[in-house]
């Protein structure tokens, strides 16, 4: 299941933790937050995103 955890710190810091998105979906899925919140101090990309990218690279090289 796709989920985005938005962590908001004591001073209004914002971190995004998207899970369940694959590859570029991750960037697209959080775009509305980055645009709407104005300031995102950090973003934690999950392994899933990179797994898909590695998989794509393998397909491309074969």
């Amino acid at each position: 299941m796709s989920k985005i955890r938005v962590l908001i710190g004591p001073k209004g810091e914002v971190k995004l933790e998207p899970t369940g998105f694959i590859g570029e979906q991750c960037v697209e899925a959080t775009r509305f937050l980055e645009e709407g919140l104005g300031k995102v101090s950090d973003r934690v990309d999950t392994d899933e995103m990179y797994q898909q990218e590695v998989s794509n690279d393998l397909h491309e090289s074969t």
Partner: protein
Amino acid sequence: MSHMADIEHEFKSLEAIHLAAERLGGTLREANTYKWYGRYMGDHPLPEGITKEQLGKCDWAISFPNAEYEIGILDNHDGTYRVLWDFWSGGHLQNAVGKDGVDFIRAYEIEQTTLLGIENGYSVDLTELTEGEYAGWTAVDLEAYV
């Protein structure tokens, strides 16, 4: 004493400002003026782009119980809003919105995240984290409906 300043943040939603005020126990209303010291004493720089004559003028005001002074909201007419306040301790606003307005910024971020999540088709769940690396933070979980 007059200590006018911006609450430094990019505010893009009046609705989230409204809900942030309520989250902190305040009330937003349409208003042309907000309460502050009332006279510029020259003891603190004016907020950028604001003249002495513009101090105390606004489009909306936020009042808080037990605070004499109020927050003023200005419409920038570009989809953003400016949030001004007189942070002198005698006005007691700092008790409501935190030092440098950080409690207000935090409340705004929580409300804006919630609004954006709902607008984009997510269910929203808030958790106050008490343990681990993010103790003291708020987690807003946006989950896609299946």
